[in-house]
């Protein structure tokens, strides 16, 4: 079984801070990580590999620095890594990104494609289903559990108040939730192998069968016209000199003032 896991290198948004003076994002020094949902997808693939044998390829579209995310995936146990990178792909929105990744996937053998549900920098959850559409594959989003039997995959698909247990014939695409599992660590030996014994295969614009109008900024239907940081709400009152009983009474008084009770 060939499994391709699509991963994205993202800034660790938990560590993104705002410049208190300018209100702009401080991106410097923010470490890059494998997007958590994608990492759960990779773990799911590695577990299938451990349990029943599989060839796991990781694929990432991004700038050359995304190499580090792919090496990390190799160090966790992936067999092969592919970096889809080209200036021509820059500025892509989810439509153009999915179109490009789908074109790259056509160059690889796969039975199962796993992507994360969404990336923590964009939070769109769009690229997974859109890759499936481009490849004309069925997609199962929000997977909390994945089982493979023969040519079929059974997935526990999460909704807000319920699950669907669904069965689909491979090839297909699944989007994974970080709740799916606890991803394994790399191993020290795996890290050395990832850098010294393995290669990251690079796919560029000229390797892909795509139209210029369908990739990068040009192929993107959406445009970002403005970005801004949220204006903070005016500060309220803060009391720090009350004992617990006084504090309780103070809170009740405020509820009354606001007609909440």
């Amino acid at each position, binding site marked *: 079984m060939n499994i391709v896991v699509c991963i994205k290198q993202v800034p660790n948004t938990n560590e993104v801070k705002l410049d208190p003076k300018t209100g702009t994002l401080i991106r410097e020094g923010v470490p890059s990580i494998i997007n958590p949902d994608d990492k759960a997808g990779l773990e799911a693939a590695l577990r299938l590999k451990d349990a029943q044998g599989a060839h796991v390829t990781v694929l990432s579209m991004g700038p050359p620095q995304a190499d580090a995310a792919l090496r*990390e995936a190799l160090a966790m146990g992936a067999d092969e890594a592919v970096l889809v990178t080209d200036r021509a792909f820059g500025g892509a929105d989810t439509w153009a990104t999915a179109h490009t990744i789908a074109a790259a996937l056509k160059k690889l053998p796969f039975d199962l494609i796993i992507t994360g549900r969404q990336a923590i920098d964009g939070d769109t959850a769009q690229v997974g289903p859109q890759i499936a559409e481009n490849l004309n594959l069925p997609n199962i989003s929000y997977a909390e559990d994945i089982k493979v039997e023969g040519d079929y995959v059974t997935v526990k698909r999460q909704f807000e108040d319920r699950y669907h247990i669904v069965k689909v014939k491979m090839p297909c695409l699944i989007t994974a939730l970080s709740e799916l599992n606890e991803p394994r660590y790399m191993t020290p030996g795996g890290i*050395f192998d*990832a850098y010294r014994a393995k290669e990251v295969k690079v796919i560029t614009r000229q390797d892909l069968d795509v139209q210029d109008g369908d990739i990068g900024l040009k192929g993107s239907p959406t445009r970002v016209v403005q970005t801004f940081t949220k204006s903070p709400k005016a500060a309220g009152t803060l009391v720090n000199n009350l004992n617990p009983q006084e504090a309780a009474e103070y809170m009740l008084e405020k509820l009354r003032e606001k007609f909440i009770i």
Partner: protein
Amino acid sequence: MDFTLSKEHQMARTLFKEFAEKEIKPYAQEIDEEERFPAEALEKMRKYKFMGIPYAKELGGAGCDTLTYEMCIEEICKVCATTGTMLSAHTSLGTWPIVKYGTPEQKAKYLPKLCTGEYLGAFALTEPNAGTDSSAQQTKAVLDGDHYVINGSKIFITNGGYADTYIVFAMTDKSKGNHGISAFIVEKTFPGFSVGKKEKKMGIRGSSTCELIFNNCIVPKENLLGQEGKGFVVAMTTLDNGRVGIAAQALGIAEGALDETVKYVNERKQFGRPLSKFQNTQFEIADMATKVKAAQLLMYRAAVAEDTQKVYSEEAAMAKLYCASTAMDVTTRCLQLHGGYGYTREYPIERMMRDAKITEIYEGTSEVQKMVIAKYALK
């Protein structure tokens, strides 16, 4: 000269840091309080193949290098010196002598198990009357046909009671002093071997430190490590390598204390402003940060020397001497910056200070390191 780490070393450091934060730090205080062996950490370090980091894949190791291994000790000791001690005693002292001096048969028999952590290793040199002076060994080994019979006892043995194999030193010819010492691989199941009293210690309290008792202990002849009478060389070279590990441990403790303190002085307010705004705090932090960086450079130099030089005793001794004194100094000053809170067990600083002290003592005291360094410096 390039002071940047390679990409693989950087990634390894990220791994060790995350692993230490998530898997070891949550237990650190509990292990100290309860003086409990860090079994959970050992299980996880086995799973992620941390037990033979510097050794070749052919031997069952991870195929990394000494620097990677020492960074692992460093990062783990930032949050829990006890766990670092266990790993360092296993890798540097319990496994290294077999890698270096083992016969092909000994390597094939023991290294795959030690490097995967199926076996935990330990090292037994110290005796009640033979600390720094190893020639005063009283444990004796007598050849009797196809086996040696060992009698005597060892003390202060790290991983004692939990280890599966012990590198044990014993006199095969008492009359020759250091040249009469031989090294053996002793399995915990050998007849006549037992574990005695467990020490109660000031620091690294979760590390198991035990007495070992040899009462007509039967050790097969093929478990002699190196040649008969060459045990002193085995011991001394193992300690050179072990000292880099203790340097890494001491460095980690100092860095961990500094990290905690930077966090504390930014949060804690007195006289209406964070402690970090006071010049005394700034000068203390600046001074400590500089010392810690110097210690790190010495430790990394020793780690690289171990892989590239035949002899690195001087580098190892300097690294251990300086890292250990830095650990003691930095933890003491960090505790002072914490004030009364630092003296309580609510904060990890007092534990780090207690843990730091041992690094000036074991695997050669600071004074022994100075003896080694002086030998080179006065040449």
